[in-house]
């Protein structure tokens, strides 16, 4: 894997920071679509799988394929994914465009930036999703 320059890393991190509002809304959408296991206090397996694929992917397009495959299955989880999947794909498209803007001369560096953006993106989105779970739990306790 290619090593990014400090400037490229900073640009990627700054972009994710600037997208805070959008990512928060997506995290909320994930909560609305997938909820969580209230009895066992477990996060949705779909959200966990998304996080896992993003953190382990060596190709950005593998993340996109994961979402598309989930949306295309004829299962109950596919209907959940269809609620948020297009928004997730639009987010990923934006990350692709941003990576091309941060690095325009090296396809390998662009690839590395895409993956860095994706990992920062999923951290922000899942953080909001987890926060929504915490809010739901607090509401239940105070009810």
């Amino acid at each position, binding site marked *: 894997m290619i090593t990014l320059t400090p400037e490229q890393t900073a640009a990627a991190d700054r972009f994710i920071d600037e997208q805070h509002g959008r990512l928060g809304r997506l995290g909320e959408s994930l909560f609305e679509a997938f909820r969580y296991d209230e009895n066992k206090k477990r996060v949705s397996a779909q959200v966990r799988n998304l996080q896992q694929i993003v953190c382990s992917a060596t*190709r950005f*397009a593998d993340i996109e394929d994961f979402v*598309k495959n989930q*949306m*295309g299955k004829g299962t109950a989880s596919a209907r959940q994914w269809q609620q948020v999947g*297009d928004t997730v794909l639009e987010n990923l498209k934006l990350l692709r465009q941003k990576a091309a803007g941060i690095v325009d001369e090296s*396809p390998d560096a*662009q*690839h590395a930036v895409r993956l860095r953006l994706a990992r920062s993106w999923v951290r922000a989105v899942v953080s909001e999703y987890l926060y929504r779970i915490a809010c739901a739990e607090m509401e239940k306790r105070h009810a």
Partner: protein
Amino acid sequence: MLSPEVLSDTEFAEQAALAVDSYVTEHGCPKTVTRAQIYGLLHVAKNQPTSVKQFAGHQKQRAEKRNDEDQRLFWVCVEQLCDGSPPRTPWSLQQCAERSMPPELHGEDVAPGEKLSLEQRQRRSEVKKARQRWLFAWYNEHYPQFFQRFCAHYLYRLGMKGD
């Protein structure tokens, strides 16, 4: 030359989506091109990459016998993505492989009527064999990646159609 990861991430992702969108725009997602068939295509691409075209040809023949034109055209699309040529097929895996191939494996053109020495003929034969070995290795590495993108995008279009 792009690394396999970058090629898969960029050109393959783009071309796979274009091919699926083009087919779906013209034919929709026919009921007869089922998830099982897509998973079958993906299985062949991952486990027997160099057999994808043969698999597609077989599926095409079965569709012809059933007079299922939409399904036949789907498998024609897959065949063209394997080794189609311009102008009918602006992009295919074979064209991509040829562009990626090291220059020394392209071989030299021989003028009509030109006689080659024994050494030259042997050299051409060696280059041809090296080219075939290179292509075989390239196809084995890249077919699974491309058809992963293709199948994922088709399933996505199928899912959004509501089937």
